[in-house]
């Protein structure tokens, strides 16, 4: 059933600029340039306007092309690759619909600073602007959601543009760059020169005055707290050393999880809307808050004017535009996080603040998850099996927040989630891309029943390339759980268009249709043995965990509230008739389903 990919990477030629050959075309120059940049894997989907590029691909066996089943799957896989490795991810699509299918992934990469190169075909130059077949102004469409984009109008400039695009995507605050190549440019004879990779500019070092002022502030602190964001994923070692040297209690944002080891007693968890009690209260009472590589997203700050109301804020960020954008920084430090952390570590005076530490310890005991069977219990049991090198990706919603609250990461770049854009359908293809980048680790995907169906077609990609290290866990509560939670809390339980349980597929049969083994569990005891079977199965596998829908994710800071106004625990429910009916209806549906599908899918 599984065909080995006929094109095998040949690492010998990688990194060497190809010689100009007589029949060189724009399309061949593209692949030669990508190969010269050490790019050995691209994700894509062909179509009319990109066919010369796919034709030229056959001459470049050193680059492996992964054929996805939808361009969105391809770009999320490229994102997963990039997020796990820190290297650039590359995806390719045709013009028009192919290109527009990349839009979600580009916006996602822009928000979460994923270095990405997207290559699209376009109609021939003389047809551009004529509403030609499959024409879309993709550079116009993606202008606000890319770091930069290009239309290549001269085939000889192609290598230079690709090199520049890669440099832009990787440098400073990374992000996506799109290069649109008209079909006749791909076909045209190439007379230009192939180029070597461009060096990325050096990261800015902190100014000595800023460091001196920061040290002074830190030394004066009675209730210090450190916040680490996604921008510090590459500075994990330096920031961990900084935090330990000063003994500063440390908070990692959703994007920063893993940048500081969760096993360290200094770690307080995640801040924000579904952050930990300790993190949110620590921020609210801190007198000095130092943040590295974070942008004070509205989900992190809650009501901005009451964010860290007592704190002097030191904001270290590479991007000057992020400093002072949302939260006023008393001490702005525009610098590379790693260099700033190193500069602040030398003169460290370890904090001894018994009262503050006792207070933090008390907060850490609060905000327990329900111990009865439900999504939280299921996620807890799954993430408990993560080994330090394993990658965890998620979709968006309740399962994502639960995973962020419950998983314990010791290393950076092991937690891949769609934070800024909140893209449903991200988790599975991203996990697939990460698994291809690191075949030796297990890539665990946690998704909801809703989000998984947005990119479920990529099960075919797992099978096609015989990817053996993706373990998909679907937390199936038959609802768009997070939307339902908001409807319950803020829309008087009017559950509008969130019920999926009556029409969800049999996920095990779906997996089986792609020749992927699956297991199902609907209680805590069965889950443990199902997890054993699922993880020990030789090859990628799917685990469906059927859970009731009644639990929300807590702690929760309601939109517009301050962090210290968080709801720590799930409110005791007073069931009204509508709620009861709803629960009854969905429980019936679930139990019918589970009794019918108790057995494993046939191999």
């Amino acid at each position, binding site marked *: 059933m599984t065909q080995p990919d006929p094109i095998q990477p040949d690492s010998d030629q990688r990194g060497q600029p190809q010689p100009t050959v007589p029949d060189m075309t724009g399309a061949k120059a593209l692949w030669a340039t990508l190969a010269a940049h050490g790019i050995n894997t691209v994700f894509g989907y062909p179509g009319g306007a990109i066919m010369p590029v796919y034709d030229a691909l056959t001459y470049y066996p050193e680059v492996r092309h992964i054929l996805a089943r939808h361009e969105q799957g391809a770009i999320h896989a490229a994102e997963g690759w990039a997020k796990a490795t820190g290297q650039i991810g590359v995806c390719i699509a045709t013009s028009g619909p192919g290109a527009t299918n990349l839009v979600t992934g580009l916006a996602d990469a822009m928000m979460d600073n994923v270095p990405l190169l997207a290559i699209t075909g376009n109609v021939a130059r003389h047809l551009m602007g004529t509403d030609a077949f499959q024409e879309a102004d993709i550079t*116009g469409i993606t202008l606000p959601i890319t770091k930069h984009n290009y239309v290549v109008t001269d085939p000889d400039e192609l290598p230079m543009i690709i090199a520049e695009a890669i440099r832009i995507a990787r440098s400073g605050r990374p992000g996506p760059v799109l290069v649109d190549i008209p079909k006749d440019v791909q076909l045209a004879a190439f007379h230009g020169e192939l180029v070597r990779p461009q060096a990325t500019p050096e990261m*800015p070092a902190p100014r000595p005055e800023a460091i001196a*002022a920061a040290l002074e502030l830190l030394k004066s602190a009675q209730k210090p707290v450190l916040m680490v964001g996604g921008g510090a994923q590459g500075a994990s070692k330096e920031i961990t050393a900084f935090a330990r040297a000063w003994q500063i209690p440390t908070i990692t944002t959703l994007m920063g999880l893993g940048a500081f080891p969760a096993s360290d007693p200094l770690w307080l968890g995640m801040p924000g809307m579904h952050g930990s009690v300790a993190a949110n209260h620590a921020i609210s009472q801190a007198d000095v808050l130092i943040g590295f590589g974070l942008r004070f997203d509205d989900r992190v700050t809650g009501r901005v004017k009451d964010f860290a109301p007592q704190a002097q804020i030191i904001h270290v960020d590479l991007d*000057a535009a992020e400093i002072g954008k949302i939260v006023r*920084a008393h001490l*702005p430090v*525009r610098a590379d996080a790693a260099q700033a952390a190193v500069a602040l570590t030398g003169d460290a005076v370890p904090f001894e603040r018994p009262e503050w530490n006792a207070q933090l310890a008390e907060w850490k005991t609060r905000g327990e998850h329900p111990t009865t069977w439900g999504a939280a219990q299921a996620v807890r049991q799954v993430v408990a099996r993560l080994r330090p090198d394993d990658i965890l990706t998620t979709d968006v919603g309740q399962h994502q927040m639960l995973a962020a609250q419950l998983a314990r990461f010791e290393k950076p770049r092991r937690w891949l989630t769609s934070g800024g854009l909140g893209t449903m359908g991200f988790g599975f293809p991203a996990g697939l891309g990460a698994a291809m980048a690191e075949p030796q680790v297990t890539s665990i995907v946690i998704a909801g029943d809703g989000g998984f169906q947005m990119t479920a077609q990529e099960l075919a990609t797992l099978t096609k390339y015989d990817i053996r290290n993706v373990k998909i866990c679907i937390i199936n509560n038959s609802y768009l759980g997070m939307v339902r939670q908001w409807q319950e809390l803020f829309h008087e339980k009017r559950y509008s268009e969130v019920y999926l349980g009556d029409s969800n597929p049999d996920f095990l049969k779906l997996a089986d249709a792609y020749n992927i083994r699956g297991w199902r569990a609907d209680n805590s005891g069965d889950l443990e043995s199902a997890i054993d079977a699922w993880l020990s199965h030789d090859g990628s596998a799917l685990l469906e965990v059927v859970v009731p829908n009644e639990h929300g994710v807590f702690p929760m800071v309601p939109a517009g509230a301050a962090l210290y106004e968080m709801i720590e625990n799930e409110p005791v429910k007073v069931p009204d008739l509508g709620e009861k009916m709803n629960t009854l209806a969905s429980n019936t549906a679930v139990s019918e389903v589970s009794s019918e599908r108790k057995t494993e899918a046939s191999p």
Partner: protein
Amino acid sequence: MTSPIQPTPDHLVSALVRDEPRVLTRITSLFGRRGYNIKSLSVGTTEMPGVSRMTFVVSGDRGVVEQAMKQLDKLHDVVKIIDHSLEKFVDRELVLVKVRVENTDRRIEIRQMAEDFRARIVDAGHHALTFEVTGDEGKITAFIEQMRPFGILETMRTGRIALTRGSNADIPSHIYHEGETQTLEPLLQSAPREGKAREVNNLF
């Protein structure tokens, strides 16, 4: 940099940009989606091939304008931002004003008034005179107000343009050489673009 700068409703900002396709769209779209207000915008080529210069009048408090400048500076095609509120500058605006002329008496009256403003007549018709006035914003506004009672048929203003005073050029000539503007490599190598002119006061 801690000099107190009083917030004013209008801020004058210049940008040197690569003369690339869509550069204007990139900039205006950034202003649009982030909700910044452009009061006027004028664009022209510079003495350096491949580089255009824009002058914006941005309205909003100091924080908004700073944020706008920082966001602009992140665009790949933007080479340099010059915040004119931080240095002495000279600015000018040009306006064309077409004024209704009802009779000969009025014609004389209008022309006398125009002379006070050193306005030049660029078109004279039986029933209208078109003037060209150059000056700072105050002078132009005053001229338009003076002409209003006679009946203004239409006006067109270029928006303000500005240059820093003194011998400092915003485009350091050593960066640009003939033939190199195609790749603009030297420009990129010249980062950090942290000249005095764009130093914004909340960056320590």
